[in-house]
């Protein structure tokens, strides 16, 4: 008797086809209610109108490899504006036969970034590794030793310059930002006011005004005979700008450390320096890692503004290609390509930041 029952049981009644699988999913997510159904249909219609022509333009009718003339007759995109000029777009005026050097420097940077992705690799030695790596990158770009010919920084350009400005900018701005944040939290009124004025002043003005200051006024600040090159001036402007934003982020972290931690540190007899170094900052800086990545993303995007003061970053090299009569009229393709590069960079950083946020949240 029991046996018969048990044999009958496995024949479960399946849910109706309208509740499972693709149909069920579509019903639950696309056609629940008349409003959503209309919305879905309208959206699908819009997609049908826009996506196929775009695909035809970007892929099917596109020209991938040709010298300018072949593009003129094509009905699709002319991607050969990229394939014919990619060396210039990526490296700018860097001497053609030496371009392996910025390439190696960039690979080194990507390698370091990739290695640092894993939180278990974060230790003192990685920090030293980064410092050493940044120096090696600088030397590779600059040259002038070990048989490498010296390359003037005025010839630096393209992607290496974009990365250099953002990564060096963030690295140098970080300590300054932390100092400013500590100053803003300080009980010494004078220092507090000074820091607030600096932070609010910088955050109130657009980056472009600082870049103008760097490129036009900064030379006036220096004594006679001393000159700093254009890239460094832009770099200083970016550092001063980024530091103010980092300061605000770090302040958020400092406020996120519970009051009890300060009091506990004080009751142990630690002075303010030790309290900050051993107790508060390690916790605060951990909290602010995800927003710091957001600042890196902003810095990466914002470096494109150096176009306006005529530095040859990725965007400017692209525009230089586009001003060549041979490639006149293919801005869309070139800009879409550059946008894709920026998107990939920012998107992977943003994703990483989100992942990190989740990991750090569970740890606490």
């Amino acid at each position, binding site marked *: 008797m029991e046996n018969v029952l048990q044999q009958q049981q496995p024949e479960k009644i399946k849910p109706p086809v309208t509740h499972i699988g693709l149909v069920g999913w579509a019903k639950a997510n696309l056609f629940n209610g008349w409003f959503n159904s209309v919305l879905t249909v309208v959206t699908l219609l819009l997609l049908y109108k826009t996506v196929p022509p775009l695909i035809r333009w970007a892929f099917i009718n596109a020209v991938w490899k040709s010298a300018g003339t072949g593009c003129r007759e094509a009905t699709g995109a002319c991607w050969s504006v990229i394939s014919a000029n990619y060396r210039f777009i990526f490296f700018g005026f860097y001497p053609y036969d030496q371009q392996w050097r910025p390439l190696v420097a960039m690979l080194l940077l990507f390698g370091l970034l990739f290695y640092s992705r894993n939180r278990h690799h974060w230790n003192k030695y990685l920090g030293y590794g980064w410092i050493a790596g940044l120096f090696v990158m600088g030397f590779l770009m600059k040259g002038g030793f070990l048989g490498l010919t010296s390359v003037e920084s005025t010839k630096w350009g393209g992607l290496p310059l974009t990365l250099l400005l953002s990564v060096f900018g963030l690295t140098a701005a970080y300590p300054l930002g932390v100092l400013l944040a500590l100053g803003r939290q300080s009980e010494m009124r004078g220092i507090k006011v000074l820091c607030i004025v600096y932070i609010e002043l910088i955050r109130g003005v657009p980056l*472009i005004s600082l870049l103008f200051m760097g490129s*036009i006024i900064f030379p006036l600040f220096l004594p006679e005979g001393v000159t700093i090159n254009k890239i460094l001036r832009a770099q200083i402007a970016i550092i001063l700008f980024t530091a103010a934003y980092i300061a605000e982020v770090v302040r958020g972290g400092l406020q996120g450390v519970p009051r009890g931690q300060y009091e506990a540190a004080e009751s142990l007899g630690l002075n303010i320096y030790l309290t900050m170094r051993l107790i508060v900052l390690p916790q605060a800086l951990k909290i602010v890692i995800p927003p710091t990545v957001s600042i890196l993303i902003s810095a990466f995007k914002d470096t494109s503004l150096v176009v306006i003061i005529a530095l040859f970053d990725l965007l400017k090299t692209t525009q230089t290609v586009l001003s060549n009569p041979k490639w006149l009229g293919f801005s869309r393709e070139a800009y879409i390509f550059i946008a894709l590069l920026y998107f990939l960079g920012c998107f992977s950083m943003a994703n990483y930041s989100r992942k990190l946020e989740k990991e750090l949240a569970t740890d606490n």
Partner: protein
Amino acid sequence: MRVTDTHDNILNGSPSEKIPFWFDPRKRAIIYQIGVFCLVGLLAYYLVNNTLLNLKRQSIATGWGFLHKESAFEIGEHLIPYSAADTYSRALVVGALNTLKVSFVGIVITIFLGTFVGIARLSNNWLVSKLAGIYIEVMQDIPILLQLFFWYSLFYEFFPSPGQALSPIQGVFICNRGLILAVPEAQTAYKFMLAAFIVGCAGVYFLRRWARRRQAESGRIFPVFWVSAGILIGFPLITWLSFGAPFKLSIPELQGFNFKGGMTLSPEFIALLLGLVLYTAAFVAEVVRAGIQSVSKGQREAAMSIGLKTGQVLNLVILPQALRVIMPPLTSQMLNLTKNSSLAVAIGFPDFVSVANTTINQTGQSIEGVALIMAVYLIFSLSTSVFMNWYNKKVKLVER
């Protein structure tokens, strides 16, 4: 015993032993501050001194005298009358007004688009939600300057000359001279309609106050929304009708190589507006989404359980709470839009930075020029933060 003794003495502020001043945190703080101020002062002195020497050597005269000189450059778009014979100061005012114009229009459109995308992101329609997500992600991750260049390039490369202008809707033309729209011709009645609208706004304000007080006293609800809408639309409409309903469309027509009539929006303006709006809307969408999600589900359920209707739930319970979360980041996004409008200089829209830049190039007064740029943007940001502080205090959660 002795230890407690000293301890008490320190607490009482009368030390038996003399404590060296570097162990006293208060005195130490003063010394630190003096030190920092000296350093900053020295740095400032050094920079100013160098600058003055350099200016002297290059024989650049400082001062604001140049503001009263003739500017001798044209500005394509101006809200107030302007010609090349006017002074630099007027040119700068024209630039500042252009910045305000593009920021204001941009902010209004951005709030609508951003709210729309933010709500779409929360939609339970999978397709709509995913599309909104893609929009947000893509727009946030592409530099605004690149977007500006892209939209601008459409005008000078993609759109045809006025002769073959595209006309997606009747009365709207797109060509490489910009966007040309059919607009109603100016009538005197419109000024009175505007006045009627402003009067209507004031009326609505007092009506709301009255309705709220009456509801607090008697519990009766006054249909404020519908009556307000009636006032706001009705007042201007009555004015318009009383003037005999004057209406005449100014329709753009091709004459020679350009359009006559209608309203022309320049390619620079459109590209700048498009870039700013599409970029900032992605951030605003995230802000709106976070704000709506921050109101806990229990609030909606509680509101419904005490018998409020859907509209009331939204108006009286959800929105006031969501707005409290939304407003601060929203304002900072609006400020970002205003600051980003300075990128107009890259595509040639005559905003404040662009005009100031031309002024710097013509006069060589770089310090004054950059100082002006910074001052103008600081005024924008500081006035906004003053307003925000006032608003935050007003909507702050009253905790008991």
